[in-house]
C-alpha cells in the first residue's frame, strides 16, 4: 500500500492520540451515527463469514477506524464479503455492513484526492 503512506506516520508501539487521522472516521460517523455506540462485544466477529475463513476481524475494523489506522484498514476491509450477518447480531443495532461500505467508499475517495492533488 505504498500509495497510502501519506496517510500515516511510522507505526510505533505507542498509541499516539495526537496523530490520529480522523478524516475517515468523521465521514463514517456523519453517514452512520449508529457506529458511535459500539461496545466491543465481539458478537459481529464471532458470526462474521469472512472472519471464520480468514484472519479478518470486523470488530477491529471499527477500532482501526477510531484509531485512524487507515493503511491497515484499507488492506483489511477488502476481506469483507458483505453478507450482513454481523448486522443481524449486533446488540447495539449498528448497521455494520454499512460502516464497512462507507469505509470502502471513504478510502477510495482519499486515494482519488491524493492522485488529484
Amino acid at each position, binding site marked *: 500500500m505504498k500509495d497510502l503512506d501519506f496517510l500515516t506516520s511510522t507505526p510505533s508501539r505507542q498509541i499516539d492520540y495526537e496523530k490520529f487521522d480522523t478524516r475517515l472516521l468523521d465521514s463514517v460517523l456523519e453517514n452512520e451515527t449508529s457506529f458511535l455506540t459500539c461496545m466491543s*462485544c*465481539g*458478537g459481529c466477529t*464471532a458470526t462474521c463469514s469472512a472472519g471464520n475463513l480468514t484472519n479478518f476481524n470486523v470488530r477491529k475494523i471499527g477500532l482501526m477506524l477510531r484509531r485512524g489506522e487507515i493503511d491497515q484498514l484499507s488492506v483489511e476491509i477488502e476481506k469483507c464479503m458483505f453478507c450482513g450477518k454481523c448486522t443481524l447480531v449486533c*446488540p447495539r443495532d449498528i448497521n455494520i455492513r454499512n460502516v464497512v461500505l462507507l469505509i470502502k467508499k471513504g478510502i477510495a475517495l482519499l486515494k482519488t484526492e491524493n492522485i488529484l492533488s
Partner: protein
Amino acid sequence: MMNKPRHIAVIGGGIAGMETASRLAQAGYKITLIEKERITGGHLTQWSHLFPDSSDPAIVVSRLSSALSHQNIKVITSTEITDISKNGQYFNLKSGSEMSLNADAIVVTSGFHLFDASRKEEYGYGLFDNVLTSADLELMMKNEKPIRTASGKKPRRIAIIHCVGSRDAKAGNTYCSKVCCITGIKQAIELNKRLPECEIFCFYMDLRLYGSSFDGLYLTAQQKHKVQFIRGRLSEAAEKPDKSLQIKAEDTLSGRPLRMDVDMIILLVGMEPGISHNNFSRNGSVQLDENGFLKCKDVHAARNLTTQTGIFMAGTCICPMSVSETLENARSAALEVINYFERKM
C-alpha cells in the same frame, strides 16, 4: 391521632410488598396485601441460594411472612389486580369483575418479569435440550436435583452466558439488569461445589459487580472454584448430534473468534418490567419510564413516588434490584406513605 385508620392497598406480595405492608401495619395503618399467586414471597420462592452470603431465601421469606400476621394486615392471595383508578378521594382496585376494593393510598410492589429466553432464538432455549436459564438452574438446585444433562450425564463443561435479554437492542431492552453478573458468579460457585470436575466458563461483555462484597465473590470464584472468564458476547449456539452444544463468540481480549463445545448452557436472563405495569398505566394512573418500569416523580428526591399522587411504589417494579436493595427500598416507601398522610392531617 387518626379517627379512622387509613387503608392502604399493597399490590404484589413479593418481598417488597411484604416488607412495605408490615412496616405500615406497625405504624398503625390498615393494609390489604394482594398477591396473584397462591403464596406470597414472589421470585424468592424459586431461588436456591442468595448472593452475597449463599443464604437460604426461605429465611428472608419466612421472617417477612411472620411479620405479615399482624391484626392490621389482610392478605388476599390468588388474586391479580388488573385495574386501578381514582374515584373521588379513594382509589379503586379491581381484579377482573370478581373483586373491587377501595383504598386511601396504593403501594405498587408488582416486581419484575423474567426475560423469555426463547426470544433469543439463536441461543436455542426451548429448542435444544441442554440450554437452561438461570431461573431454571435456581429451581433445580432448590429442589436438590442433581445437575445433569438431559440424557442424565454429569456435565464436564458448562458455559454461563451474561446479558441475555439485557443490553440488547435486538431484544428490545437496552438497559442492564444489574444483578445477573453477580447471579452468574454465584451460580458458577454453586455449580462447582456440586460438580468439582466440571469446567465453568462465564462469557461476559462487562462484569458489573457493583455491590461492596461482589468483587470478593468474583475473587473466590477464580481462586477456589477455578471459574474462567471470557470477554465476548455469544453470537449463537448449535446442537450437535449427541445433544452437546457448540457455541461461538469472539474472545475479544485475544481478538479471535472462538468455538467451544459444552455440555450445558446457562442463560443469565434479565429482569423486565412486570406485565401488570401495562394495566396500571393504561388509564393514565401511573406513567412508565423509558425502559417500561414505573416512572418515579423525581429520580433523586422521590424514588418511591409514582407520577400519580397517592400511588407509591417499591422494589423491582422501579428497576432491577437485589434483595437487600428491595427491602431497603420498601422501608423507604413505607416512610413516604407515612409522611404523605401526616402532611394531609
